[in-house]
């Protein structure tokens, strides 16, 4: 107990909510987290989808968890261990001429010598550029249009970081950051298989094709030289460790406690009202829910100025990825892959045009019969997910538009069938191994995780919705126009992807504001119109 202690309510125990709660609890505040579902973790969760088969039901790979956060929360002590780390990406080919890449290393029967050299150069640049974005993750975005010294310094640091790339790399960064991955890959590589897989990296989780701008930006946000990791026990283990850490720090994490409304007293958020009708007062309310849910459902637009509410309504937040879970009676035999390679991150994206065509359908509210897939078989690394000899396969299926023409009822099995037809070409016989299947459309993800539109990142991660524009100007520094109400979810900078930075940045801002006694965004600046 310190005299700085304030009552803080966090809505939602997703990973960002938990990081936020733990950070504030460590700072001495009295933090209560209300989670609607029966367990914490949001989209980083593990559950049984068929008897005896468990799977990471939302995110299925870790690539961006901030090591500083893992250390601060002591996640290892709270039970986080890895079943696999350093996983590379294997681009599957029906003829078994697969290739694998991680960082600058390209290998496999499908790898061309020319591409091997190009990959080293590509990796060196991408890693530098990605590091530039990565370094911004633990910064509160500066406000535009203020004369605030801190904001100007932050802008200056950003400019300096770009300048420090040196002349050639800076020019390249500025050239490609806003353009499409299709053109950039064609400039550098020959093998369609490699370009296809990297195209998928550039478009994963987003409503854009390889030829859409922002796809390089998306690639940079996802770029990892260290490879991907799978926690022991699935992604739910990350959340469990975070919840444990938050509780150990003194936060009260209550599951099965849906919040119905954010209670407003005159012009400030004064607490929350639960579904049960119970009202709880707080000095500060922090929402881990997505921005649309927070402002439109929980707060209500009548508590916002009209221009701001209009911007919130127009956040692009419709998800385009479905999740496929297969319970398999045996390890599928992918053409040309041994068991070690089968345990990597597998992608079906044979060439960039294939990926672009898969996206085309999404523009018109349809899914392609030839979807692009990102696949993991986590049971190869973790025997707790399925019985011995049996396996689970997880796949992100692109694209599956939230607003599917005709709706998702009755459509799921058609997409499952399309995926199985596709998988059968790469792993003959897999269809006979399928004991159970589950397809989660964006609509299902919205229902399960409470994310508006079923979007991984709560709001499309694109240049016009990033940094000081994320989710919208006027709420991009975690504080909102409503006094005492803050955002801490993936809809805020730096976005989703199981990093935890949004939660931690928000906690810093809240702690700073509470110390200063001003818990609201100042009025909008001219540039935030």
């Amino acid at each position: 107990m310190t005299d700085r202690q304030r009552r803080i309510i966090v809505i939602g125990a997703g990973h960002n909510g938990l990081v936020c709660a733990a950070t504030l609890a460590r700072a001495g505040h009295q933090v209560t987290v209300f989670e609607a579902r029966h367990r914490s973790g949001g989209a980083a969760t593990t559950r049984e989808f068929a008897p005896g088969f468990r799977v990471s039901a939302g995110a299925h790979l870790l690539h961006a968890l901030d090591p500083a956060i893992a250390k601060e929360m002591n996640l290892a002590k709270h039970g986080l261990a890895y079943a696999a780390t350093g996983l590379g990406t294997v681009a599957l080919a029906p003829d078994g001429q697969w290739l694998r890449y991680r960082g600058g290393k390209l290998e496999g029967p499908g790898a061309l010598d020319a591409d091997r050299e190009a990959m080293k150069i590509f990796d060196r640049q991408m890693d530098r550029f990605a590091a530039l974005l990565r370094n911004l993750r633990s910064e509160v975005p500066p406000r535009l249009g203020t004369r605030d010294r801190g904001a100007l310094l932050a802008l200056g640091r950003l400019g300096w970081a770009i300048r420090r790339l040196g002349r050639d790399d800076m020019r390249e960064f500025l050239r490609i950051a806003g353009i499409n991955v299709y053109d950039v890959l064609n400039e550098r590589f020959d093998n369609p298989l490699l370009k296809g897989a990297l195209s998928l990296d550039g478009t994963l989780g987003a409503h854009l094709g390889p030829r859409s701008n922002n796809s390089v930006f998306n690639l940079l946000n996802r770029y990892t030289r260290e490879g991907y990791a799978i926690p022991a026990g699935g992604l739910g283990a990350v959340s469990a460790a975070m919840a444990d850490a938050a509780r150990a720090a003194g936060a009260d994490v209550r599951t099965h406690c849906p919040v119905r409304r954010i209670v407003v007293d005159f012009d400030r958020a004064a607490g929350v009202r639960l579904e049960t009708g119970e009202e709880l007062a707080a000095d500060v309310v922090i929402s881990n829910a997505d921005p649309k849910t927070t402002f439109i459902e929980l707060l209500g637009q009548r508590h916002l100025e009209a221009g701001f509410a209009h911007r919130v309504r127009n956040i692009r937040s419709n998800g385009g990825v479905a999740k496929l879970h297969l319970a398999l009676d045996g390890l599928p035999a992918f053409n040309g892959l041994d068991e070690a390679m089968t345990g990597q991150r597998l992608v079906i994206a044979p060439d960039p045009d294939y990926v672009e065509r898969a996206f085309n359908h999404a523009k018109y509210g349809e899914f392609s019969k030839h979807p692009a897939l990102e696949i993991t078989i986590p049971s190869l690394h973790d025997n707790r997910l399925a019985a011995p000899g049996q396996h689970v396969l997880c796949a992100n299926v692109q694209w599956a538009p939230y607003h599917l023409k005709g709706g998702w009822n009755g459509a799921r099995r058609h997409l499952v069938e399309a995926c199985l037809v596709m998988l059968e070409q790469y792993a003959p016989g897999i269809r006979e191994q399928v004991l159970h299947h589950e397809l989660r459309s964006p609509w299902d993800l919205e229902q399960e995780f409470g994310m508006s539109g079923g979007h991984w990142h709560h709001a499309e991660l694109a240049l016009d919705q990033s940094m000081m524009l994320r989710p919208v100007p006027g709420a991009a520094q975690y504080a909102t126009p409503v006094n005492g109400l803050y955002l801490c979810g993936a809809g805020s900078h730096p976005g989703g992807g199981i990093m935890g930075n949004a939660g931690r940045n928000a906690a810093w801002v809240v702690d700073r504001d509470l110390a200063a006694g001003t818990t609201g965004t100042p009025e909008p600046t001219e540039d935030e119109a």
Partner: protein
Amino acid sequence: MKTFDISDRDHYRTKVFPSPFHSRQAALNENKVWSRWYDYQSVPAYTCETHDYFAGRNACGVFDLTPMTKHRIGGPDALPYLERLMTRRMEKIRPGRVGYGVWCDDHGQVIDDGTVFHLREGDYRLCSQEHQLDWLLMNAEGFDVEVFEETHDVAALAVQGPTSFAILRDMGLPGIEKLTPFGLAHFDFEGTELTISRTGYTGDLGYELWIDPDHAERLWDRLFAAGEQRGIKPLGSKALDMLRIEAGFILAGVDFMPAMHTVRPGHTRSPFELGLDWLVDFTKPLFNGRRALLREKAEGSRYAFARLDIEDNKPAHNAYVFDKKGNTIGWVTSAMWSPSAKKNIALATVETPHDQPGEDLQVEIYYQRELQWNRKMAKAKVVEGPFWAPERRRATPPGEW
């Protein structure tokens, strides 16, 4: 007669529509000159602007208001909707009352000003200079309200001047004498509803009449018949502009730039900068622009609205305003020689704190004599209140004159 049907798929082929009063206007429009006011033909001056003006000040002038943008706002959330939209407290405007107000964007900059008519419990009409439907609908999200534009469904006349009351009474509108300033009442007019509000844009005794367009011509005829002996005359838009400057009323697009039409930063105005502090009620928890206006109130405004009394008789159109030392501190937005106040008057935007009543300023007036331009520095004094505000505008029951 209704002359504009937005539901007609070919309506866009006609660029400008005649007003429902067109036939009567055309008969009296001696100049045969028409101007355009949004979707409608309008009369700049029937005889000449001075002649029209004196009808309005000394007897009764009738101005066709139909082209003014009119919106209807209803539904269970109409009041909370308006409270968020407008800077003033709307619950004070009871049914049967009218309120003047402004609405702002999130930055506290004025989008437009207008009048809200509380026609019946929870049923409002909002009249504005600019088209506002887009903004009003954007504001409707999250509220259980019905908002639509009814510009083309309501014919309206402003009946302004000292004899306006007697004329309406003689038309046979029982109870009209009880109508107080900013009050409104509904009357039966040959089987249809005639709504009359004691409002106007002239600063004088006057009324505004609202009726179904199909009854427009009939209303005009009855009105002019009743007013024949009391000097009733039609009044054009130029004369109305003179009347409103004398009354000290601002006009969107002339005295301030509507925020939605403004591109350049700093070219918009807050209610404080337009002298409308009394319309901003911070005891409301929320309205569009509240946070920005709170900040402006604390830190001070850049500009202020000033009414100037200028020496001599040359209207200071578009003049720069200087302080005593000769520093440019603003500019005139509306100017005229006021025949009623017998003063050379102007509305101006000046930098704060040069808006204090009694402040001595100068204006640079350019004027032409037989094609030759002359320039003159004239003394100007900031005055408080309107240039013309006769007591008769307030009296209830009003005088006969």
